[in-house]
């Protein structure tokens, strides 16, 4: 009798989902993320058309391709990825810590402030106020606002994480580190080269910033997310939590040194360049630990990643992640770098990382969470399949095409052909890229329409219990 009472008391004191997660805010972040993704992809298509000499925009300064290109990169990093990560963290952190975020009103304030930051950045870029650092083009007057926003984000999510007692799950390690790293990385890239150092030193800091933005902001948030969602969808704990911690600490010690591999063959001292090369190759070992862990978790589940759509997104992203890291370990060697530097190989690599890995993961999480939050099934599950195949397939074609095109460009330059020759040989590759980009863009538009129709459906139907296992298509 006493035992039964204890169980009931424990169940009573165990927090409920509505006490922990502000589900409406998660959806709002997804809407914002998809909106900025549309803007970013539209800008990418315009840039792709510009390369094919079919720019549809009038030749005025505000709409010049160079500015659209910056909107393409900034909107995907700060508009799509950051918004989606923030929405997903609003789901994951409270459920893992069993505590709500520090303040729900603060969460709403951050939401609106972040949209202001991204929109203001876009407007500033179009009116020519960009800073001269890739990914750090954010106009100088926005930087303090963004920095303050990142501090508030760290406080809001860091509080429940730091209140956790006992050993922490690896996701919380990644998230806690990402909150600190992102704040520091943003400050390093947006303030140090602007106000404190110049010349080669600014270049070296810029290199650290560019790569740390991927490795210390996007990567820990992405892997933290995967360590949470994959075990849940597979209904089994991660294969080795110890191995996952090796991956985390390996990232922490190796990654900050890598950035200068973007500036090989520059006036930056060679020992720094070699340091970046070695740490990049060494990080491949860390990546292998992570990949082994996820394969080990999947092993024996009977092909669950083929039949469960969110899982298929996740493992597709993991495959692309392995490929990009392998590619990275090769392309940072001085010999290989001499061939592919400044070519479309790098563009293909960047797309494989940003879309093939992190965007696919986020789209997989959205595919899983949206019906759970709306408490209804997807309006048409077959459209989710179309979305997956067009996104993943389009990306595969685009990245493969650009990587191959980059090799041809590099060989052309190495053979000392006239510059125009490399332009002519690039046209077929750029044409394939625009087709693949249009397929990917169409897939995201379908997803947005599908999201809207599912939301409409949720208003018209009584709440249904959507299985926590995700969208199975077997």
């Amino acid at each position, binding site marked *: 009798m006493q035992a039964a009472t204890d169980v009931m008391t424990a169940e009573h004191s165990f927090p409920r989902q509505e006490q922990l997660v502000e589900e409406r805010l998660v959806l709002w972040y997804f809407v914002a993320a998809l909106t900025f993704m549309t803007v970013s992809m539209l800008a990418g298509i315009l840039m792709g058309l510009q390369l094919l000499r079919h720019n549809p925009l009038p030749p005025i300064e505000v709409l010049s391709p160079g500015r659209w290109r910056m909107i393409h990169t900034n909107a995907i990093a700060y508009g799509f990825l950051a918004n989606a990560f923030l929405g997903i963290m609003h789901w994951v952190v409270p459920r*893992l810590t069993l505590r709500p975020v520090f303040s729900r009103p603060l969460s709403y304030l951050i939401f609106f402030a972040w949209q202001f930051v991204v929109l203001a950045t876009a407007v500033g870029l179009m009116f020519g106020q960009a800073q001269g650092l890739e990914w750090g083009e954010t106009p100088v007057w926005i930087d303090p606002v963004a920095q303050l926003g990142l501090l508030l984000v760290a406080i809001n999510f860091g509080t429940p994480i730091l209140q956790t007692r006992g050993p922490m799950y690896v996701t919380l390690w990644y998230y806690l580190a990402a909150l600190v790293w992102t704040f520091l990385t943003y400050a390093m890239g947006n303030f140090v080269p602007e106000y404190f150092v110049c010349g080669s030193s600014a270049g070296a800091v810029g290199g650290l910033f560019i790569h740390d933005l991927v490795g210390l902001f996007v990567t820990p948030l992405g892997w933290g997310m995967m360590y949470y969602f994959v075990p849940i969808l597979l209904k089994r704990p991660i294969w080795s939590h110890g191995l996952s911690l090796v991956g985390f600490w390996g990232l922490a010690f190796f990654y900050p040194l890598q950035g200068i591999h973007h500036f090989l063959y520059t006036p930056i001292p060679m020992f720094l360049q070699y340091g970046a090369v070695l740490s990049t190759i060494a990080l491949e070992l860390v990546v292998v630990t992570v990949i082994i862990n996820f394969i080990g978790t999947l092993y024996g589940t009977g092909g669950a990643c083929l039949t469960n759509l969110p899982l298929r997104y996740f493992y597709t992203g993991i495959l692309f992640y392995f490929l990009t890291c392998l590619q990275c370990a090769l392309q940072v060697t001085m010999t290989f770098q001499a061939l592919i530097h400044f070519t479309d190989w790098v563009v293909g690599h960047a797309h494989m990382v940003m879309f093939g890995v992190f965007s696919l993961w986020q789209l997989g999480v959205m595919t899983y969470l949206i019906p759970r939050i709306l408490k209804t099934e997807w309006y048409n599950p077959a459209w989710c399949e179309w979305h997956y195949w067009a996104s993943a397939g389009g990306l595969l074609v685009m990245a493969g095409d650009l990587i191959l095109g980059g090799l041809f460009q590099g060989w052309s330059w190495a053979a000392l052909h006239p510059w125009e020759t490399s332009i002519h040989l690039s046209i077929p590759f750029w044409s394939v890229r625009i087709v693949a980009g249009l397929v990917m863009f169409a897939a995201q538009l379908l997803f947005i329409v599908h999201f809207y129709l599912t939301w409409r459906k949720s208003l018209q139907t009584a709440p249904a219990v959507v299985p926590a296992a995700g969208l199975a298509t077997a």
Partner: protein
Amino acid sequence: MESDTKKHRTHWMVWVFSALVLIPTILGFANKFLDLVLVVQGDEEGAFAVTPIVNYLLATAGFLCLLIWTAMQGAFENLDGPSQTMFENEQRLDGLK
């Protein structure tokens, strides 16, 4: 018996990869530190390289402190415990709906 074997295998992998990750890290770190000392001592033209190295040293020092603090908190005493707890909590959260 089977779970014992699996536990042993997991442990073995963790130690091997820990060594593979930590040894190059320590060597790389020592090498960078030596370079920093040499640059500061003599090469005035290369002095600007101090900025990224100091950045890295600061970041690494932070991680080192965090690692020591974590070990002192007992985070590495039960390596697979947190994943089991997380999994059970998730099932309870979904079961309470």
